[in-house]
């Protein structure tokens, strides 16, 4: 159990002073994201995202299972966001920390609850066999804003994923291997993108995509999940300083432009991958 690295008062004061003057250590503007790197794995559904020094790996896999009784004709999506001691040294394997619960809840809302993936399309034989899609998130390095990086990784992995093709004759289901029939992508309605804000001095100063040092001194944070059509899927403001309505509206404008920019980055990476194949 290694204590989270605490910075000194001098560093905290300096960063706060910098934010007040609109200056950040890595010379970013207050509404800018860090450099995003998306690399897709040799196998389908594997995406490794770097957001500055924050690094997240998402792996999508599928299997055939029985559906839930109350939704016999719908597939399932499960998300595993266990924090790894690689990125969070002070985490105890087994006992989920408070941060882990917050992160997994936001990602759950962003990817599952927002109906981004069409689950009806995952049904094979009603209340017999459905596809169960599993997204495993692995946090490799944490330099702030793990939520946005994880969301980009999950969405790009789901978009990159292909499941084996199947033919159904009555009860009989045959699953074709990748060599026989080329695999089928998931049907994605829209791409929810998380944009995280950090607030300082009772909401007077706002910063997008905070680094770990900025996260340590923020007084409040908010994560907006929205898609490229300017629709808000989820909004999480868990405690922290109360914010005026204008700040939230102002943040939503910034969030829409950022979400559009990120979606373009994901699309560019996907197209590059397609042309490489």
């Amino acid at each position, binding site marked *: 159990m290694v204590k989270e690295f605490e910075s000194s008062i001098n560093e905290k004061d300096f960063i706060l002073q910098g934010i007040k003057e609109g200056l950040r250590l890595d010379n970013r503007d207050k509404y800018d994201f860090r450099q995003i790197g998306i690399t897709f794995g040799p196998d389908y559904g594997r995406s*490794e995202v770097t957001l500055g020094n924050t690094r997240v790996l998402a*792996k999508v896999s599928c299997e055939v299972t029985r559906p839930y009784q109350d939704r016999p004709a719908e597939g399932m999506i499960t998300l595993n966001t266990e924090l*790894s001691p690689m990125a969070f*040294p002070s985490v105890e394997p087994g006992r989920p920390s408070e941060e882990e619960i917050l992160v997994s809840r936001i990602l759950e809302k962003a990817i599952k609850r927002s109906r981004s993936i069409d689950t009806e399309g995952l049904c094979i034989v009603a209340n017999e066999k459905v596809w169960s899609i*599993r997204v495993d998130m692995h946090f490799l390095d944490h330099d702030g804003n793990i939520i946005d990086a994880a969301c980009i990784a999950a969405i790009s992995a789901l978009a990159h994923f292909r499941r084996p093709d199947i033919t159904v004759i009555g009860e009989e289901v045959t699953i074709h291997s990748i060599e026989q029939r080329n695999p089928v992508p998931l049907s994605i309605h829209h791409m929810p993108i998380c944009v995280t804000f950090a607030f300082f001095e009772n909401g007077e100063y706002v910063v997008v995509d905070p680094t770990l040092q900025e996260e340590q001194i923020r007084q409040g944070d908010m994560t907006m999940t929205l898609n490229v059509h300017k629709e808000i899927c989820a909004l999480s403001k868990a405690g922290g300083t109360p914010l005026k309505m204008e700040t939230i509206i102002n943040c939503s404008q910034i969030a829409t432009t950022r979400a559009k920019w990120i979606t373009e980055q994901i699309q560019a990476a996907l197209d590059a991958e397609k042309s490489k194949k």
Partner: protein
Amino acid sequence: MATRADKRSSSTIRPISITTSLLSRDGSASFSFGNTKVICSVNGPAEVKLRDEKLDKATIDVVVRPLVGTPGTKDKTHEYILRSTFEGVIQSGLHPRTQIQIVSQVMMDDGSIIAAAINATTMALIDAGIPMKDIVAAISCVISKDDQILLDPTLQEMENVKSFHTFAFNKTSSSLLFCESLGLFTDDQYFNCYEICNAAASAIFEKMREAVTNKLQEEYHIES
């Protein structure tokens, strides 16, 4: 010599790639055999939990995370393998009452995962500057249905084989540190695999030396 699906001869290893210091931890490294890739991070010697504290040496804590699914008994066994293999090699007596935490994460799974994890751990420990009296290299092989020994098998080559072997050797005396052999095999087959993997291990040690040399050249800006 029946060549394999990816045109390799039976005793060639897939292309090895090693990168170090890629994470913000004290030491980190990624090791890959072709499409099998494992990232390992080392943190320490650092603060230890009171209940794990040992008075005369460092506590070695290992966490192994699979690529898919939640960690199960298979990963717990890999943790036990990594800890027992490296406990004999790390000079933990130099840092009493501390903890050296090794976290190994599978990035791509195309066979020989435990061998890649052991090699990644060696490189991560070197990157973290943890004192060791020797280093460890590991390699796997299978004996196929027609009694052919295939070195460094891919996931596909590991299905319906007669037996599957993983060996880990140390560098100086290249003696055996870890071995797991499963399936049905005779003594000669076992010792054949032992020799082939021993030779392959020294090739991996050369790759490790090359990686360290390249990194040092970069750091000291001396073109070799």
